[in-house]
């Protein structure tokens, strides 16, 4: 009796392993394929075998030296835009979250409802207006414009999750500091911010990645090729020379994906924490 049960569970464990291995293969395959493609000789999408016979780093070199693809420049633009909008976006979102979490002021619930409704409009519904606005401000085709759009939009999507995280920091801590005579600013800087490090990590990560991969607003605002970000550049590579330059696209894709993938894997618990604290029923 016992033996049969044991054998049955070994069998179902084996089945479990088989399923997990199968799914893992499906998961890893696209990533593996694009890395291998980037090392393949030639430039076409079609390849007779999965593992390239001869591997080369030629495409990576070409990507940085090509005169028609300004990849090095795009990369630098993207780093610049992402870092600055991360700092500004995180700052603005934290201010909003802190105000909503810690203060009870006139108009609080109304402004929270307004913010919530704003986040339900499709983001790029505002494209035309932003375009005309930036045109009038003579900011089209500048990186400042992209950074402003990202940073100003950050609180609309991040403030609620952040407020949820801040709410979990007991109020008694900052109240006792207030009793001891600390100003609001002091409480914010030396008590809330250090305790809210998971929230800051979450915000910094989402804002950085958001700017890094966005191609909707970047494509709208950045008109000239020298100003592009990598997302726009890659999109252009795929849509204009799909088959003729695939290996180079792969090399670009690998370079764009690596920083983000490493960051995500390294910081994933903050991301998941952020998502659940914003949404779960308490």
């Amino acid at each position: 009796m016992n033996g049969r049960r044991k054998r049955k569970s070994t069998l179902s464990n084996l089945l479990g392993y088989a399923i997990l291995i199968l799914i893992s293969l499906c998961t890893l395959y696209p990533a593996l394929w694009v890395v291998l493609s980037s090392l393949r000789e030639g430039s076409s999408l079609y390849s007779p075998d999965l593992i390239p016979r001869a591997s080369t780093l030629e495409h990576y070199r070409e990507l940085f030296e090509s005169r028609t693809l300004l990849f090095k420049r795009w990369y630098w633009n993207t780093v610049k835009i992402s870092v600055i909008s991360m700092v500004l976006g995180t700052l603005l979102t934290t201010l909003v979250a802190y105000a909503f979490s810690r203060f009870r002021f006139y108009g609080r619930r109304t402004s929270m409802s307004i913010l919530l409704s704003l986040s339900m409009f499709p983001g790029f519904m505002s494209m035309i207006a932003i375009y005309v606005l930036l045109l009038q401000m003579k900011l089209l085709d500048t990186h400042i414009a992209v950074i402003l759009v990202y940073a100003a939009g950050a609180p609309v999507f991040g403030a609620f999750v952040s407020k949820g995280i801040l709410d979990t920091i007991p109020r008694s801590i900052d109240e006792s500091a207030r009793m001891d005579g600390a100003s609001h600013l002091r409480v914010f800087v030396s008590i809330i911010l250090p305790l809210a490090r998971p929230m800051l990590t979450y915000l910094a990560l989402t804002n950085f990645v958001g700017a890094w991969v966005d191609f909707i607003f970047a494509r709208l605002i950045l008109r000239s090729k020298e100003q592009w970000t990598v997302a726009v550049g890659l999109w252009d590579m795929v849509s204009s020379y799909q088959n003729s330059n695939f290996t180079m696209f792969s090399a670009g894709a690998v370079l764009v994906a690596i920083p983000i993938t490493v960051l995500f894997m390294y910081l994933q618990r903050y991301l998941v924490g952020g998502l659940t604290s914003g949404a779960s029923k308490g």
Partner: protein
Amino acid sequence: MKRYSKTAVILSLLCMGLGQLYNRQFMKGIVFLAIHMVGLYYSILYVPGAVRGLLTLGDHAARMELVGKIYQHLAGDHSIYLMIEGLIILALAVIYLGIYLLNIKDAHDAGRIRESGKSIHTFRQDMYALLDRKFAYLLLALPAAGILIFTVMPIIFMILLAFTNYSAPDHIPPAKLVDWTGFQSFIDLLQLKTWSKTFYGVLIWTIIWAVLSTITTYFSGILIALLIQRKGIRFKTMWRTILILPYAIPQIISLLVMRNLFNGQFGPINQYLSYFGLGKLPWLSDPVWAKATVIAVNMWIGMPLTMVLMMGVLSTIPKEFYEAAEVDGATGLQRFRFITLPMILFSTAPILIIQFAGNFNNFNVIYLMTNGNPVQPDYQYAGSTDLLVTWLYKLTLESSKFSTASAIGIIIFLIIASLSIGSYRRSRSFREEDMFQ
């Protein structure tokens, strides 16, 4: 007793700052007076023009006109610029009015304090109060300005656009003027045959897509989480790390890669199929296959997140439940059906709704994978896999049908808002939870 507050209110009503001066709050009075001067000057200068511009949207389009003996190009009114400028000026005017009201209330309050015989606040005390009791407003000032300019204003503008005929080819400034047309864009969208066929077609597919993609990612996530958490399975961290990878790769990359993987002609997947002697499949070129492919790809992208969430939820289910069930002789399936599933559903219902809303507006997967294709000849500017959002995007950027696009945007908003407001309001971050405090 003198009625300080009444006099102060009347004075402040007449001119900003006078009430404060009357209350002997000189510094504040001067600040208000200065704001008043600037505000009044610009209001008189710009508000009438702005209102006129907003109401008429311009009188003359750009045109050639006979001046003397030669035709000259005359710049006309640009309806869209008039509209945006009008909006900005009106927004500033509203802020000015708000400050005006604030000034009256302030004069009234200070008057009251004088009536009660107490000494009024000095400017320094007022500033201190701003840092203390009204600190929240200070915190919100900068973010609010940003949101006002880059989110609220553009959204109001787009809402207004839905009620105009701003659309190619007949109503594109500066050559032509744009007019207010009321609900015409909505009526066309819902009733005019050429548009309504596309609209209902795309709407139905959007709903099917949102339901299927939410269900597939949700349940595949649960099943995989359960599998990894099984007693007999080892190396749990390793499996988890491998399976979370799709979540970590930026979507724009993974989707563009997928698009090539499934390429019908040269893609490796069809290539492998032909190794096994199977024919090539029209992954992205046949309407039905394309729909199935995008749902599968979306599952690949969305599953990891649900999996991680579920692993967290699963660890919170008390072990006693399962032990008790085992004593009662429940099978594995029964345990899942009557313990695991209800517990999971209960704690993740809000996430489910958020994911539904997210999928409803899942621009990336569709636009980057298929670009809305394959082409659907019966549709207006949309393909078989287009969702409402991607259709909106195409109408805006590719065919300049701005008024229709705005109407679609409003409809999307109404659908999403009615779905999620309820769940958001019940969620933890919205409620006034004073249990921690």
